[in-house]
């Protein structure tokens, strides 16, 4: 990090003080700054935890050029909400060891959190969560996407996710034959 030498000792003191502060500042690709609790960030994101531990956190805003401001806002929002909700033992252990991670459905607030997101925001958040190594958030968001497929016909799924139907007529017919006994239909 470039330290402005001209500001002298006051700056130095401020910097020392900031090293001990309990938030980290993150900077989105479009330059917006977000503050997030250091504890929550380290607990929820393996990448941020590594950066905090490795000292590569920039007090003036750690550049996260892969993440747009909208997605980062959601990430930070999620972290802060998480910091406020009492973290259950299950959540903590799931970020430590996947082997002992108990079965855990999304909690109510997590459901609401992803439910309010638009399609694009949700996809961006998935990518952001993946980039930041946020297991739990990735779980919650991917779960939401899979839930968006629930109860939909293949056509509806294609429409929602903009997937091209690349089956030929013959193949569709073949699958229909396979489903001769089925009780589902398009």
């Amino acid at each position: 990090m470039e330290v402005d030498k001209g500001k002298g000792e006051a700056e130095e003191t401020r910097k020392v003080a900031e090293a001990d502060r309990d938030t980290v500042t993150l900077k989105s690709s479009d330059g917006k700054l977000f503050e997030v609790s250091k504890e929550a960030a380290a607990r929820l994101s393996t990448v941020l935890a590594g950066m905090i531990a490795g000292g590569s956190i920039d007090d003036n805003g750690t550049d996260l050029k892969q993440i747009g401001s909208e997605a980062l806002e959601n990430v930070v929002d999620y972290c802060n909400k998480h910091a406020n909700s009492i973290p259950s033992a299950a959540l903590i252990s799931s970020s430590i060891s996947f082997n002992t991670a108990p079965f855990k459905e999304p909690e109510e607030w997590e459901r609401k959190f992803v439910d309010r997101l638009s399609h694009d925001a949700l996809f961006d958040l998935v990518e952001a969560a993946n980039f930041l190594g946020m297991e739990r958030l990735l779980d919650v968001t991917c779960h939401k996407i899979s839930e968006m497929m629930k109860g939909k016909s293949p056509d509806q799924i294609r429409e929602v996710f903009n997937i091209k139907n690349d089956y030929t007529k013959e193949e569709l017919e073949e699958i229909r034959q396979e489903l001769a006994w089925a009780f589902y239909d398009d």
Partner: protein
Amino acid sequence: MVLPSCPAGNGIVQRTAYAKKNSTCRGRLLALESRELSSPDSSSAPPFTAKRPVPASAANRICDDGVCVQASHHRQGVVVIPFGQDLQACNSAGEGRKSRTPAGNETHDPPSQSQAIPVDDRRRRHLNPIQSHCNHPNPRWLKLLLRPPAITRPASMADDLIPCLPEDLARECLVRLSFDQLPTARRVSRRWKAELESPFHQRLRRHRPLLALAQALPPLASSGPARKYAASTGFSYRLVLHDLAAATWTPLPPLPSGERGGGGGGLPLFCQLAAVGDGPATKLVVVGGWDTETWAPTAAVNVYDFLAGVWRRGADMPPPRRSFFACAAVVVSGAGGGAMVFVAGGHDEEKNALRSAAAYDVAADEWVVLPDMARERGEPRGLAVAGDESDGRFVVLGGYATAAQGRFVGSAEAFDTATWAWGPVTERVIEDGVCPRTCCVVGSGMYMLDGGGSFVMARDAGDGDGGAWRTVVRVPEEDGRVVVSAAEVVAVGDGRVAVVGSACHGGGEQKVYVLSHGEGTAAPSWTRAAEPPEFTGHVQAACYLAWICFVFGASSTRRQPGRRQADSDGREIATAYNQFPEDISTNNPERLTES
């Protein structure tokens, strides 16, 4: 280490997923912009030249997967330069020159090249892109339309599992589909079908205990004291899948009616259930039972295919038409799906106890007649015991001879699928006079309810000699009454035992209790899943499905991929049955502990 950075350019963002055990980071994206798609043979030079130094801040890390580099000049520039050889990386560089396997999106270097090139070079070579992916901020669809034609590859859209979502993340979403969504999802596109059917996808899934229950439909569930035969008063049964972890209950589609030669259709009464196979490839087999209208024993076999979501009629059980026979899915090397469904004993239409036995190969849709058992066994219990090798044993326990109607014996005999012969009769495996129907095998031991149905008993030595039964725990009680009389007892595969039954003989609400008991557990404890009212009907048969499925709370790609690597191998399946993580029971709403 000097790492090549991505050239900034108007290329296409390429990504690949690479999951590896114990990875410490999730940054598995290979997001590269490539201006010139280099030839796979140019191994001497990195396909990308470093135009600027890799930023030293942020996410430069070395993880198990490789080196993660934050390439800061575009939004999604995370680069993982993978280590190792088993990479799903690729050489399909040129326009339209994709070399995807039909089963998925994994492509590999030609083996000769892989072997010839030093690891360092190979690493660089893996920077070659494999999948195109749209890279643009919101709004995605608009950007997509506005993309210059030079970098648009229309075919790539169809190739994406979910457009605008990287492949590995799309897979993370698909892996979370539940079994009842599979048939629909398979019809969305070719890619989805291939993905769902690929062994790779199935490996991402994880064991999740499911119980298949033949359960009475709700409106009639509470009638009549004569529960065992209450079905005759017009009870209608259906198959229900109960997910023990999520406490969800899902009915399966009904059996096709009228296919049984003028019979009543629907699920036969007193049918037996067995599950063969694995994950989405699981087949649930419904064997025999009584026709719902005529009450005549049926030889019918129906197979439910979870992937297609359909019932198929299987080959009929060989004669005689038996009822109340032993039935179990036993691991057999070489059989389709790794296991066969064995039936033995029971009685014919004249109530003669039978010695005959047969085995059904689900994939081949063929019955094989087995040698006869040593004894006649009416109403025996069929148990599957994992063998030392891939071949399991089919244990037929208890039952009675024709002359001794209803007077059960405690002996057992086992069919060894390795030698394809019945072993000697073992006497007094259970107490004489006790009906064996609640008996189940857990690991190397057995569990059952005692004669009065109020205690769970265990025996360490399986069906062999010398094992003594001991009392493990009292069956749960509510208001002083034993909760699960006339219960079905099913081993859940992870060492736990599910007990399904109701508080009163009159056909009260059925409850599913799960007993956690093992060396690691201090005290045997019961957990109970709350069941919605429509799933409280009488349960007539139950079977355990080794369903591998996503468990919420731990990301799929970080699980031990080695666990299920030989899916088609019976041995792997057999051992995997005993390897369930003991992590499921903590969140169930009720937990009773024996004090």
